[in-house]
């Protein structure tokens, strides 16, 4: 068992309790997708691709009153220590659902009846917080696809490690720590659209943890915004 924190509050990867891992986002990395993004978030390496709004297959899934959103979170066989079976696990199906519900509030699906927007996320290398990183990439890919959005969605986890509330839980901290709370917000509207918790928190820790995660989301938002600005304004494209 690794020591997760020094007495000086330095974490096993050298970070302070309130420090994010390195994040970089590239926009428009795929040619076939209508929108795409690649994120490196700590050791997470994740691709997101978006298609749509487009016709729904199979047709009976189409809704004449509104567009629908589909989301698939998938891990590559080589993304984790032990080779993963390529068939989707129950965990991946659940995460696909919570990601969809985290993105949906940011979209205006009523404007695109009878269509579908497909969000495909591929985790090429997984680290702690892969669902948050996936969401960060997916939101940017939706924007890159030119889909009208009320707001971006920015995600980051907080947690409890060695009895302290920390920002952005990594893999070791997730597995041996005391709690992990992934959170996503629409940063301008201020709503929390994804939230989960595994682990044990007192009511006070719960509040601190939530505020810490939201702080992280706001920092992530800046990285997302910069990535989009870089593609659409500074490089002069589009």
């Amino acid at each position, binding site marked *: 068992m690794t020591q997760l924190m020094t007495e000086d509050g330095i974490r096993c990867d050298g970070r302070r309790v309130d420090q994010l891992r390195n994040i970089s986002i590239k926009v428009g990395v795929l040619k076939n997708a209508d929108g795409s993004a690649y994120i490196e978030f700590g050791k997470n390496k994740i691709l997101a691709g978006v298609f749509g709004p487009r016709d729904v297959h199979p047709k009976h899934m189409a809704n004449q009153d509104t567009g629908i959103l589909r989301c698939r979170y998938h891990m590559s066989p080589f993304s984790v220590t032990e080779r993963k079976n390529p068939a989707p696990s129950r965990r991946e199906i659940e995460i696909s659902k919570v990601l969809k519900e985290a993105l949906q509030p940011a979209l205006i699906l009523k404007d695109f009846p009878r269509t579908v927007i497909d969000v495909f996320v591929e985790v090429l290398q997984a680290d702690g917080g892969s669902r948050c990183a996936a969401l960060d990439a997916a939101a940017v890919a939706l924007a890159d696809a030119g889909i009208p959005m009320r707001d971006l969605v920015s995600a980051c986890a907080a947690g409890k490690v060695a009895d302290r509330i920390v920002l952005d839980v990594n893999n070791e901290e997730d597995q041996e720590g005391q709690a992990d709370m992934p959170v996503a917000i629409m940063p301008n509207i201020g709503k929390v659209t*994804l939230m989960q918790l595994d682990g044990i928190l007192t009511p006070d820790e719960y509040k601190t943890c939530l505020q810490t995660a939201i702080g992280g989301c706001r920092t992530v938002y800046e990285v997302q915004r910069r990535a989009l600005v870089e593609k659409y304004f500074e490089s002069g494209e589009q």
Partner: protein
Amino acid sequence: MESAILDQLKLDKILDLLKQGKRLDGRALDEQRPLTIETGVIPKANGSARVKFGDTEVITGVKVQPDKPFPDLGDKGILICTAEILPLADPYVEPGPPTEDVIELARVVDRGIRETEMIDLHQLVLIEDKSVVGIFIDSSVIDSAGNLFDACSYASVAAVLSSTIPKYEIKDEAPVLVEGVTSKPPVKTLPVSVTMARIGDYIIVDPSKEEEACMDARITITTNSAGNICALQKGGDDGFSVEQLVKCSELALSVGTKIRKKFEQLM
């Protein structure tokens, strides 16, 4: 089309009532539906419970049997929770592989029991790394009328509390049942799941089927006997404000206390 109009009318009605602090079925906003728990309903199982929660009804059975531990978890017994909405429970449920809704249901119930560390899994090891006791907690929804999360969770907890763990001896490296010797399950804490819905600006506890049909977002929070928050799942197609999330955690603790008293009577 017509159905969309009816839905809108029902939503208007529900919102109207909420402004007056009322709900369609007359409950207060923080009031759960009546809960009855009956245990021992499946004598062939090692534990079982039938829960009626309003018009929602769930039967949970617990099976205890020797198994191999998960790799890298050789010092722990196995715990598996499943949930199923039987097709007789709901006109819109079809037989077949589980939908993403049902997978989420099962995983949230599982995490509520796992993350609170309700059962001391270390006490279920027969030979480290080789042979452990597995506890399978399978919930079947037989009438689906809203808030399946809490109904399945309560039935699962009650079924575990009512269960007896058979004794196994190791013979030739294989576990052999010792007839007639059983023990109580090693329970450390009592998890209580409380599900809430947001409709407009209102937070309501234990949404009914009608309320679920027009809720904006959903949250399930599980607390333990020590008053901690141990598992949480946000669902639904919209979000919560931070204030609402804090309020929900307080509701989960206060409402949870009443449910936990019911569980204590089963011990």
